[in-house]
């Protein structure tokens, strides 16, 4: 089956993908903190940040539309959190837009990080940077099984569509809910089997 991989552009050759992974991780983290700490009134700094991000996007050779789509999926969450501020404070709109701009810059830089690095190299480097093993394991499982779950959803949705014969009303909502429930149980059972498979190969949870 075809997947949209979360690091689908990681194999593109660009000057960004050739940079050391460690440098990219450290730079992105420092950059994010810097953006958060810079007050919005220093417009010059934000102009500089934007130029840096846009220039990186340009040399990464990743299609512009892709960045746009990814932003659109994440931004609503940011907006949802920040949207109440204008109604509470007098200069609320400034805070709202500063949140939004900061979020866009940080999200873009992390999209660049993930899209110019193969995920397993990213994990290896995080391990070298002494990120706790449990978190790395969680990330690695997420990367490995996202597609499996996506496949399962796709298959179920297809079966549901087939038998609901094009109807879209209350009853299909109900069966979608059932579908999600059974998906949850299936995922839970798979997790059990994976744990068994890990144990079978000498895994000990505390070491």
């Amino acid at each position, binding site marked *: 089956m075809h997947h949209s991989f979360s690091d689908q552009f990681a194999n593109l050759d660009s000057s960004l993908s050739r940079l050391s992974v460690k440098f990219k991780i450290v730079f992105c983290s420092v950059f994010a903190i810097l953006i958060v700490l810079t007050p919005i009134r220093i417009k010059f700094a934000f102009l500089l940040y934007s130029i840096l991000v846009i220039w990186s996007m340009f040399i990464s050779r990743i299609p512009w539309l892709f960045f746009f789509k990814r932003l659109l999926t994440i931004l609503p969450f940011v907006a949802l959190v920040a949207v109440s501020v204008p109604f509470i404070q007098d200069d609320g709109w400034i805070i709202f837009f500063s949140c939004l701009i900061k979020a866009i810059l940080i999200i873009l830089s992390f999209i660049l990080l993930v899209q110019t690095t193969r995920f*397993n190299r990213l994990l290896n480097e995080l391990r070298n940077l002494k990120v706790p093993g449990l978190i790395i394991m969680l990330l*690695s499982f997420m990367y490995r099984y996202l597609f499996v779950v996506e496949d399962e959803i796709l298959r179920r949705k297809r079966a549901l569509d087939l038998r609901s014969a094009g109807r879209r009303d209350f009853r299909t909502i109900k069966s979608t809910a059932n579908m999600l429930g059974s998906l949850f149980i299936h995922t839970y059972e798979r997790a059990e089997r994976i744990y068994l498979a890990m*144990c*079978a190969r000498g895994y000990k949870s505390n070491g």
Partner: protein
Amino acid sequence: MKQRVIRIEDLSYAYPDGNKVLEGINLDVFQGETLGVIGPNGAGKTTLLLHFNGLLNGNGIMSVMVSGLKINKQNLREVRKKVGFVFQDPQDQLFMPTVYEDVSFGPTNLGWDKDKVRQYTQQALEEVTLSDKADHLSHHLSLGEKKRVSIATVLSMKPEILILDEPSANLDPAARRHLIDLLKTLSITKVIAGHDLELILELCDRVVVLDKGRIAADGDTRDILNNPLLMQQHSLETPLSLKLSSRK
């Protein structure tokens, strides 16, 4: 007489809800042999296999012995090194991002040093003829390749016994043939469970028939598979190749 590597004595297992899956199983596995475990759906094949390396514990008495070791908490690690388990679904067996990381997962857990881990990982990948895929992501592989990587993940731990649950499930004929030929080249003791009776006939010296949690028959593969009455009683069927050859 051949050396006994697994001994199962009076093993019973019931699910927490009281549903009995295995009842009074007595089974010996001998060194170097390939044992088939066949039986209808829900007969308890997988449950039985999960006992071979202590992934499940029979209720009450510990009644499984591997290479003279009684399975208990102290030697669980030792037993799991000796007995390699290949799950039916490669999606469950391959949980690391890349092939190499998956194959080296077991050796790393055994606490071997880096050079030894690398050497055994490469060796295992060579054995399944997939050395060139070491850096690939598991979900990019074909099912046949995933299955062979699954076997490599276990071979890298240098097991004495290999347990395979439904090895040929969902494989296309070419991938299935490749798998059978691969299994033939491995000289270690193997236990294979499944419904692919042609595969069992080709690979196994001995077969046990499991039905409703009990061993219904135990003997030479050809003798058992060639017994139409026995086969029918346990929702099985004599393989076509045997039927055709006996007709001549």
